[in-house]
Structures are given as structure tokens and as C-alpha cells.
């Protein structure tokens, strides 16, 4: 004989990802299945459809939940809000913390080898792990903001390589035209060649297109300071520097 020990409301997340509020749910500890009253759902304004061995619960045109017929109609759902008074097996969390926030997989391996006395392998979400694994905000996708003409904006950056090339170069500098996304790259032996390369590039592209280079955007590298700034000023090129330490 089963007895009702409590009555309450429960929010379920159904297998279609919708939220379903069940009102006046009876808590019967001895029951092995959770039964949902179709009649009560009908009163709440949901429509039930049974057929082809399937169950569909819909509200207006939205399918709230789905199920299959076993002997009863079965559906999977998660409790997202509701008072659940049950004793949890917290040893997994404890071992997770003891082992310096080891992953669930690692705990599973240790438990399989019988090093840890773990029964169930359900690790709750650990906020510290989330904080620890956090990384910087991703590059924000700007809504295709592009400069309307070639050479109005050119990005430039220097990349250093570890090995010397055949000609003895250790760096390469890349110029990217913002409008066409065309790239030019040149090898450098040292960073002070940057200015000469930039002069060559400037002359070549202006001759090639017949347009004037208007703006250069660079990071705060040392090669873009001093003589480079002076050169840009003399030729009326606007030099934009990005904010330091933000590759975004």
C-alpha cells in the first residue's frame, strides 16, 4: 500500500526541450514510475494525441512532449524546479574536490580500477571548474562592417618565426587590405626593416590601384613606433593602434 507523503508543483523539462508545469503533484516514495494525469493536463489546455504507438502532448501548435508506448506511454523528462527531498550520494563531488577538481572521466577510470569507493558517477556542475576553464571572450562577430573601397584601411602585423629561413629572415610582416581581404607578406631579417617594407608596399599598391592609402591599423608593437609613425604622418596616413593586450 503506497501513501502520499506530499503535494507540490513541479517544473519539468520535457524531451522536446519545453517546460511543463505539473500542478498538485503527489509524492509517493514507493512508486517506481512517475505517472502524469492526462485529464489534468487537458484541463490546463493541453491536447493529447495517442496513435501509432506514440503519444504527443501539444499546446496550440507547439509540441510540448513526446512519448512511446511500452506498456504504458513513456516519456523522458527532467525536473528543473521543485522540492526534491532525497539523500544524494555526494561522494563523487567530494572526490572531485579532493583530487584537485579531476574530471568526471578521470574519476570514472579510478572508480573502475577500484581505487575509489564510488557508486554513482553523477558529478554536479562545479562552478569552480567552470571558472577555471573559462577563457577570454570570443571575437565578436561584427555584422560584416566593411570599408567600401580598396586601400581605405590596411591591417598590418608582424609575426616572428622560430627558425631562420634560407635567406636568414626571422620575421614576416603581413598587410591585409580590409575591402578585398587580399594579403601581402614579406620576410624580414629584423624588425627595423619594417619601415622600408612598408614604403615599398605603399608605393606599389598606390601605383597598382591608383588609389591612395588612407589608414593603417596595427598593434602596439615596437616596429610601429618612432620612424614608422613619422612616415605615416608625413604621408598623411592615419595610423590606428588597437587597444593593448586585446587581440579581439
Amino acid at each position, binding site marked *: 500500500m503506497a501513501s502520499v507523503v506530499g503535494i507540490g508543483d513541479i517544473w519539468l523539462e520535457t524531451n522536446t526541450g519545453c517546460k511543463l508545469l505539473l500542478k498538485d503533484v503527489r509524492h509517493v516514495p514507493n512508486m517506481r514510475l512517475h505517472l502524469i494525469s492526462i485529464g489534468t493536463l487537458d484541463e490546463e489546455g493541453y491536447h493529447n494525441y495517442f496513435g501509432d504507438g506514440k503519444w504527443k502532448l501539444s499546446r496550440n501548435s507547439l509540441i510540448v512532449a513526446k512519448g512511446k508506448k511500452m506498456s504504458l506511454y513513456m516519456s523522458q523528462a527532467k525536473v528543473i524546479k521543485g522540492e526534491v527531498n532525497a539523500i544524494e550520494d555526494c561522494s563523487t563531488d567530494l572526490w572531485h574536490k579532493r583530487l584537485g577538481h579531476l574530471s568526471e572521466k578521470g574519476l570514472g577510470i579510478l572508480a573502475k580500477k577500484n581505487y575509489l569507493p564510488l557508486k554513482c558517477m553523477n558529478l554536479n556542475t562545479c562552478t569552480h571548474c567552470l571558472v577555471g576553464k573559462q577563457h577570454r571572450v570570443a571575437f565578436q562577430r561584427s555584422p560584416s562592417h566593411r570599408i567600401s573601397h580598396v586601400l581605405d584601411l590596411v591591417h598590418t602585423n608582424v609575426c616572428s618565426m622560430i627558425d631562420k629561413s634560407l635567406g636568414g629572415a626571422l620575421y614576416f610582416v603581413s598587410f591585409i587590405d580590409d575591402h*578585398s581581404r587580399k594579403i601581402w607578406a614579406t620576410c624580414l631579417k629584423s624588425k627595423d626593416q619594417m619601415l622600408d617594407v612598408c614604403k615599398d608596399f605603399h608605393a606599389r599598391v598606390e601605383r597598382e590601384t591608383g588609389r591612395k592609402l588612407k589608414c593603417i591599423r596595427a598593434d602596439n608593437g615596437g616596429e610601429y613606433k618612432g620612424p614608422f609613425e613619422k612616415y605615416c604622418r608625413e604621408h598623411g596616413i592615419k595610423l590606428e593602434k588597437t587597444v593593448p593586450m586585446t587581440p579581439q
Partner: protein
Amino acid sequence: MNRTIVERIRCMLSHAKLPKSFWGEAMKTAVAMINLSPSVPLEFDVPDRVWKGNDVSYAHLRVFGCRAFVHVFRCCYPIFDPCF
């Protein structure tokens, strides 16, 4: 973009089995190939086409790297070594 270029350099050198000192040549090739590849910010248009304004040709492309033989000068022949 530098990362893209460096990744391409690494791929091409590894495929051509070339030493790292050839990165200059690989870099030039990588840049030319990126300029011929569709680019996401251009809505999959080709940078070279946007730059020049006319269609680009892919007919001249070959795989990076080729088999080469080193010329050993006559005076340097290892004459006392057994012939293979």
C-alpha cells in the same frame, strides 16, 4: 591572419618534407593561395578577384614542393668510396 598563414606554412612544409628553413618560400605560396581562396568576410568571394575586379585563374597551380637532385661537383666525388 598570421595564425592562418603559419598553419598553412606548417602544412606545406610537412607535406613537401622540407626543412623549416624553407618557410619563406612556403609563406609566399601560402599568401598567394589565401588570396585565391574564398573568404568568409567577403561572403565567400575571392580576395584577388575583389582586388583586381576581374576573374582569377587557377590553371597555373601545382602542388607545393618537388623532387630535386643535388649536383655534386666532379672534384668533390668521393672517389675512394665504393660505387653504388
